[in-house]
């Protein structure tokens, strides 16, 4: 498909600020990605392992752990996106 309007390929000239890489169509910072993978793995697998061993509790605890990890990461990590509002043009 055309690249119309997808700003991912735009390179800025300031070298120092460019520290994000593209994973799966969006930008991430390697350090933040590693933190997020560690947190979510611990909360999800942790939830699964600490749950009482009677199905389906381990899975539900795991799912809850996954959501907790997701929320934690969303609070701790800033998205790599800039905003600008554009008014309607004729």
């Amino acid at each position, binding site marked *: 498909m055309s690249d119309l309007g997808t700003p991912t390929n735009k390179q800025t000239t300031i070298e120092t600020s460019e520290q994000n890489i593209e994973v799966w169509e969006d930008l*991430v910072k390697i350090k933040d990605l590693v933190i997020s993978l560690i947190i979510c793995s611990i909360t999800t697998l942790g939830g699964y392992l600490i749950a009482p061993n009677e199905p389906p509790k381990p899975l539900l605890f795991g799912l809850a752990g996954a959501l907790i990890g997701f929320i934690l990461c969303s609070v701790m990590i800033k998205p790599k996106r800039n905003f600008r509002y554009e008014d309607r043009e004729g």
Partner: protein
Amino acid sequence: MDPVIIIQMIGAAALGAIIYTIIGIAPGTDETAVLAPVTLVLVLSGFQPVVILAFFISAIVAKKLTDSIPVAVAGIPGGVMAAPMVEHAMILKKHGVPDLSIRKMASGSVIGTLVSVPVSLILANALIPMADVIKEYASPLFFIGAVFLALMCKNRWLALAMIVPFALLIQGLRHLYWGVGAVPADTTVFISFFLGITIGPVILTLFELLNNQKRKNLERFDKKNITLYRTKMEKGFPNPFKILDRKEVGTSALASFLGSLTFFMSPVGMTIFLGETLSSRVKDPVKKAARAISSMDGLTNAAYISGTLIPLVALGIPLSPMAIGPANALFNAPPVFTLEHNMHHVLSTSDFVWATLIGAVIALLLTFYVTIKFSQQICAFVFKRVPHEAMLGLFFGLVLMLAFMDAGWINIGGVLLIGLVAGILHRWGINYGVQFMVLYAAPWIINKIIGG
């Protein structure tokens, strides 16, 4: 039907609509990767099949309604299926009517849902007499499916050449697990291999980050610049039949009908082909773009619903790109569902109708209203608050857990290995469809090779 179950269905549908309204908007989310793990967990947790079906239908309708919002609001596709619409939405933006895109797309989606639900159920019932014949040849059909989808790939010879080695990898791991006693001899590891394929591209990238040279050479970016177009607030409850003119309703309905009939084809391919064909004779650029996006959105929605419902109701084996991908958990999620015992076998026709209707209606009521009214606010919220890292972490965590559940710690290594290979195949242009078909056909392929 038991009122408690109905309340559960409504609750599940509402939950599905809310979760997938947010996930639908987040950019770069692959349909299979976001739908399959959550559905799998719900199936394995032992919820009633009707409740899960209501959740799933609501989730796909909501996801489809919302993954085109970022296209209209910021020119970024919210999912693979929304990519063909970017060009047309940009034309509407250029002419200063970005809010028109959202309303036309969402209304197209509504038409797609309204057309495809009855068409799918009727078509599925018509196919039932053929089901016994098709079921008998399920394994070779998956192999034929793999060959067929491989021939459709950009790198068709590479895709064909990879079928047997990939089947060997899958069966090799299964036999290893049996050999070392990681799983009992009657257990076939499936779910975690499926998910390994799904998040393959991410696993490959993660491995590459450990490679010093690769990491240093990776292209670096500054923050992603997103321009949000200010849109007007809609008053009252939106009516899709007023938003679309009569011709747009007609082409959306026709596209949705054709999309339902071609449920076994690739939805992205059909969307591009039919969307462009149906709008090619319109001269005025704004009208042409509006016609294209409304019919494309209708079609993708219809392809999703029919691709799930027709194989599910008629066959019980996942013979469509949609069924073998995002909807896979409804067909095969051992030990709860297997190809011999899944939703197809446990639900009656009226169960299917009710679950589909409750799921679709709740998602349309909640998400269509929200989409039209608050599209810009939701987009801004998701873009500002939900980091891509958290999305990747969420799905990575779920895959790890399901890998551990399937066959213990050894399988985390196994899933990483499958993901690594699948990620390379994906980068080489061998799409998920081929890989999933091989996953299903692997035992049969290996049996045939050794002359069984």
